[in-house]
């Protein structure tokens, strides 16, 4: 059963107020992750206080990296179920968890940060993992 929107709205806005595009339907996910080769970072948001409290500020901190993805979107687990399901389909054999984060090129999954690597960690540590992933996958190649 979804949480009340009144409770969830501040958790959505923590991301959307900082330039992250909210995706609430499967179609919106498909349109956002259009297979044009662009890199897209998707934050699977969650109410969970044990992990999401660090996930959101960690993601926002990571997005300040020099080499950021072309697009940044978010879906909300337990709330926007069709959108979340579509992201999970695109993640292939990766088990579902939330909060979590995924980096795609087109619709190909490049990198995934599962919930257990977010739990109990401070935002700076989470951001460092994200920055490292962006450096590996979003930085222009020297060639």
């Amino acid at each position, binding site marked *: 059963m979804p949480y009340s929107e009144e409770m969830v709205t501040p958790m959505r806005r923590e991301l959307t107020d900082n330039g992250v595009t909210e995706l609430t339907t499967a179609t919106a996910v498909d349109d956002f992750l259009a297979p044009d080769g662009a890199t897209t970072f998707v934050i699977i948001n969650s109410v969970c*206080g*044990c992990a999401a*409290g660090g996930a959101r500020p960690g993601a926002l901190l990571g997005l300040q990296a020099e080499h950021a993805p072309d697009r940044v979107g978010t879906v909300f687990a337990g709330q926007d179920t069709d959108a979340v399901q579509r992201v999970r389909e695109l993640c292939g054999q990766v088990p579902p968890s939330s909060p979590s984060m995924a980096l795609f090129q087109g619709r190909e999954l490049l990198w995934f940060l599962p*919930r257990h690597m977010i739990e109990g960690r401070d935002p700076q540590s989470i951001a460092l993992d994200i920055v490292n992933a962006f450096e590996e996958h979003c930085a222009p190649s020297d060639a």
Partner: protein
Amino acid sequence: MGTFHDHMGELHGITVVVSQHDGCTWIGRCHSEDAIEVILHDADHHDPTQSDETTAQWLQRARQFGHWPRITTIRISRPDVSGLVRLAEISAG
């Protein structure tokens, strides 16, 4: 990092690995643990006698991508437990 449930133990809400004396292993989100039992939510189970993967292989895959939440809740008797650690603390293979 605080949680919404400060009255619970420090592992509440954390994904843990529970090893058993019989060689089986559980991964799940810890609800609570005490001298009586460990309670996990959204858990998965590995039995090396029933799997093509070794315990180490199964744990490495879970460490990298997460685990499948196949069992809603499991209560593991504490005398059966030989180890309890965070999944994130399992070293990379």
